[in-house]
């Protein structure tokens, strides 16, 4: 991995809360930083409300972040003017969660897939058609679907169309926001394999947003875990899944049962009680402190910084990990 394609630094996104709910500001994303290298797949994992989708929307600037920078190939996306941004958009594309609402119900598949080509090139109608046909072939759909309308396709087929649209311009970065969560388990594997194959052959980088740990483990090179708007742990897939350090990551992994009951019983790790804290009034210090079995006074007094725990860049934000490390 030479050089980062995407550098996100101290990204913060606040929404004004509805007056009826007492006002205040929802701190959806609180100072998130990460990088994605060329050809790398970074998984962004977290539960509902952790801010992972908001991060994705800020990266493609569907939302204007409150603070922080999103540098794509050296250019800060949050500050480029509209005209320039439109040109840049050819190089990063997005796949949406819901394959039913993400395709215009009144457009044929051919027009949907051709749209990015039309927006960014001056290709003739024949060339546009040829590119759309190639993209459809690449995602494993028969050319017959080109003349179909979205409602005539199954969920899996629609998501393939969404993927074809996102990849038709051969972008450098793909943001995939829970692309398989809305699909039946039986078609999930097909889409994930396809995504992995296409990534290998086309070489794009990918920000893969999911709440499903097994999906992240299958697909991603590195994984970042989000909790209450912050990244609490990031590391290579192998290190993070084999040796989770943050109590939150540990509890997430412990919540997914292992097929082997003996190993399941023998598995260590923290169990969390309660619900995530409010992101309007996040707790002082570490966001996890109200639920964490290891929390002490220091966890309430100050927010932990990242501690590097391995040579491969495995990092975690937990006071107790620091202590446990220095104790060794």
């Amino acid at each position, binding site marked *: 991995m030479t050089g980062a394609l995407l550098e996100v630094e101290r990204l913060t996104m606040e929404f004004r809360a509805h007056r009826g709910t007492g006002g205040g500001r929802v701190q959806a994303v609180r100072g998130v930083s990460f990088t994605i290298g060329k050809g790398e797949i970074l998984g962004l994992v977290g539960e509902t409300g952790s801010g992972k989708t908001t991060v994705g929307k800020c990266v493609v600037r*569907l939302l204007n972040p409150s603070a922080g920078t999103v540098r794509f190939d050296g250019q800060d996306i949050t500050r480029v003017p509209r005209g320039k941004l439109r040109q840049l*958009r050819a190089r990063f594309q997005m796949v949406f969660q819901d394959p039913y609402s993400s*395709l*215009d*119900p*009144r457009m044929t598949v051919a027009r949907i897939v051709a749209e990015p080509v039309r*927006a960014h090139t001056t290709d003739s109608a024949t060339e546009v058609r040829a590119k759309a046909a190639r993209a459809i072939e690449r995602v494993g759909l028969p050319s017959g679907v080109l003349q179909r309308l979205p409602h005539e396709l199954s969920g899996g087929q629609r998501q393939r169309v969404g993927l074809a*649209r996102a990849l038709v311009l051969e972008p450098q970065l793909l943001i995939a926001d829970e692309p398989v969560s809305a699909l039946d388990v039986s078609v999930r594997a097909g889409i994930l394999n396809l995504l992995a194959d296409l990534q290998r052959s086309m070489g794009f980088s990918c920000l893969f947003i999911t709440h499903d740990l097994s999906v992240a483990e299958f697909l991603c090179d590195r994984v970042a875990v989000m909790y209450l708007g912050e990244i609490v742990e990031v590391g290579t897939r192998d290190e993070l899944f084999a040796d989770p350090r943050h109590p939150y990551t540990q509890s997430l992994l412990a919540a997914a049962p292992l097929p082997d009951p003996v190993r399941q019983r023998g598995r260590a790790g923290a169990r969390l009680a309660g619900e995530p804290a409010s992101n309007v009034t996040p707790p002082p210090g570490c966001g996890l402190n109200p639920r964490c079995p290891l929390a002490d006074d220091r966890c309430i007094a100050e927010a932990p910084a990242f501690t590097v725990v391995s040579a491969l860049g495995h990092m975690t934000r937990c006071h107790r990990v620091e202590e446990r490390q220095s104790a060794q």
Partner: protein
Amino acid sequence: MSLTIAPDPAAMLEAAGQSGRHWLRRLVERPPAVIGLAGVIVVVVVAVFAPLLAPYSPVASSFQAVLARPFTAGHLLGTDELGRDVLSRMIYGAQPTLEVGVLATGLALVVGVPIGLVSGYYRGAADMLAMRITDVVLAFPFLLVAIGLAAIFGPSLRNVVLALGIASLPGFVRIARAEAMALREQDFVQAAIVTGVRDRVILFRHLLPNMAGPILVQATLTIPGAILGSALLSYLGLGVQPPTASWGNMLATAQEYLFNDPWLAVFPGVAIFLATLCFNLLGDGLRDLFDPAMR
């Protein structure tokens, strides 16, 4: 000679394609909507083919038969105070009535929809301004606005269209704006934004086709309003001027003869009532059709 095969309506609907089959079938399943559609077709046919259908010229006077009662020889619906055939005037009168309804609605649609589309998509200060203006217009009753504008513009067919069109504008602006705001948040529009599609393309290729249903419904429901409005303006002397026949000005003239010759008022009155009812029935049917909850 070749064989002529009677077209099978079911097969034609089938051939109209997926979406065509869907909505036509579903429309036909609603009796009130079918009655409305039939009535609208009748009015349109009568207006278009008036010269072929009318037994007399609408302005030819016959002084042998002034104020003839209905069902007298040669005059099915009788004659008016100048001895003109009421049936012929009714048939010709459908023309300006329908014309005003359709043109005023068309004007409101063509001007109102783009305003609402842009307002709802971009929001901001321009949207605020557009909404406050429509609020002001909506604060007055529709007919009052139409009368006021018609009085300012002066009586003529063109000015009646203009007055009723402007009075009908807010409805279209509101609906297009609401639809644009809702569609803007849909994933497929967000996807188009991320893809880098130009705003122009998003507005006219994604938003406009997806709001066609509600706008069509609004148009079908605006036409009867405009027809009523034009009748009222004619009645007040602000609309189509005599001797040209319109249902509204026939009604206005009939007022003087209401006691002795009430049929002069009954026929145009019933015609206005039925035409308005048919457009409303059709509009309601279409609205049910496009209402997602009814699917």
